[in-house]
């Protein structure tokens, strides 16, 4: 039978795992950002997620809104750049959407992810095909919702989300950027992976890693 909830321990583990993946891919993300940006996406995400994990180490969160609001606020106040407000807003909205609960079912979690994405769009005005993190996030949520609707477990939905995120990320390669720093390059932005879509895929990788085996 499908596992239907994700608890505060797993949500926290998700963030920890995201921090690990970001740290391990710091150089890679920066390299991607060198090609079409300003060579700091790895450093930005690493600085931010290291701060998040340090904050959570001090006082573990007991509810989802505490967990994600602290995560979002820490990202906003330590990252800067484009990714700080965008990831920050994403997590803030996740917290608001989930509220003061210690666990969430697949539908509530899906709704929270959707609220997060809406926050990203509100801040950044990105649309599909602009070659941003949106291009990984949006198909991921699409796949997640589809899986849940089809009766998959949360873990299975997370895995579907990861695969869609990865596909969305890869599909950014031929795109000409219309948002963010890469847009300044015009045609020269084509032929490269978008750094933010890559880190967003790591976010779903982290979720999949956390829930795998469940």
């Amino acid at each position, binding site marked *: 039978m499908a596992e239907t909830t994700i608890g505060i321990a797993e949500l926290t583990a998700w963030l920890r795992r995201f921090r690990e993946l970001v740290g391990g891919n710091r150089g890679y993300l920066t*390299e991607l950002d*060198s090609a079409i940006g*300003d060579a*700091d996406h790895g450093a930005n995400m690493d600085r931010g997620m290291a701060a998040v994990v340090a904050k959570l180490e001090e006082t573990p969160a007991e509810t989802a809104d505490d967990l994600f609001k602290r995560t979002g606020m820490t990202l906003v*106040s330590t990252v*800067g750049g*484009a990714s700080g*407000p965008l990831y920050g807003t994403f997590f803030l909205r996740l917290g608001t959407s989930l509220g003061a609960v210690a666990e969430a079912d697949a539908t509530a979690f899906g709704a929270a992810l959707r609220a997060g994405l809406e926050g990203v769009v509100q801040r*950044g005005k990105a649309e599909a095909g602009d070659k941003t993190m949106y291009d990984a996030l949006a198909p991921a949520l699409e796949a997640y919702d589809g899986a849940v609707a089809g009766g998959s477990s949360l873990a299975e939905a997370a895995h579907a989300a990861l695969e869609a995120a990865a596909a969305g990320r890869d599909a950014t390669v031929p795109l000409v950027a219309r948002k963010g720093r890469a847009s*300044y390059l015009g045609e020269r932005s084509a032929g490269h992976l978008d750094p933010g879509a890559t880190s967003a895929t790591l976010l779903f990788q982290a979720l999949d890693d956390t829930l795998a085996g469940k």
Partner: protein
Amino acid sequence: MKKLINDPDRVLADSLVGYAAAHPEVRVDHENRIVYRATPKDSGKVGLVSGGGSGHEPLHGGYVGLGMLDAAAAGEVFTSPTPDQVQEATKNVDFGAGVLHIVKNYTGDVMNFEMAAELASAETGAQVETVVVNDDVAVQDSLYTAGRRGVGTTVLLEKIVGAAAEEGRPLAEVAALARQVSESGRSMGMALTSCTVPAAGKPTFDLPDDEMEIGIGIHGEPGRRRVPLAPASDIARMLVEPVLADLDFTASPAIVMLNGMGGSPLIELYLMYGEVVKLLEAAGVTVARRLVGDFITSLDMAGCSLTVLKADDELIRLWDAPVNTPGLRWGV
């Protein structure tokens, strides 16, 4: 990577220590990475706050002082400051006449300043106006993109608007002036070499010995096109032509800045200025004031950028007004 640094992740913090020691006329809040005037202006003056990623020195911290900024928030290298920093700066230079945020048009900068303005208004009811500088003609502008980058005009704007704020003009006027300056400036840059972001540890892009990038910004982002290395006179043409094609500068006096990117020595910048001014004058531009040197840099990148600002008597008057900052100083 060859740099005068200790630890790639501590460059900004360490540099601010030296900056504070070098300039007793400013005060550095090291925790929040904000530069303030050591002696703040009395109440009644509009507070001018700018900031952005570091690596562009003397911008912005070097422009804090009499006749320019009241505070500058320093982000990590090439990363805009966080809303917290900008909010803190805003709070501290709100002398009751409101605060103007001077923001360079990058997604990150715009979003972080926006959040700061929201937070500041919510917390203290501060009146905040924002001007976004987007003067880089290398970038095609369009409704569907992030628009043009903010580069050299920022320096001229901070000087001119700083003088107006110093005169005690109200926020609405100061903001309107800022928008006028922003709309009247155009820039174009080029690079002979890439810069190296300390945390990245290697050059952002590779550039063969016989090529250069035209249309670069100030973050080591590649330019619009890569062309064979050319003499200064040709480079001057590649900078001047797109600037003049974008705006008519012949009807009024112009303020011109030939800016170094950080790794090009003054002897070359003067040489470039000579070439640029020849072309400008041939095109009917009257150069009323000029700056040559490193004013908005891109770490150790070799190269230069040209900024031309369409001025008028009032802008020239404000330009000539006293300024006393680490990065620009005259008339005091």
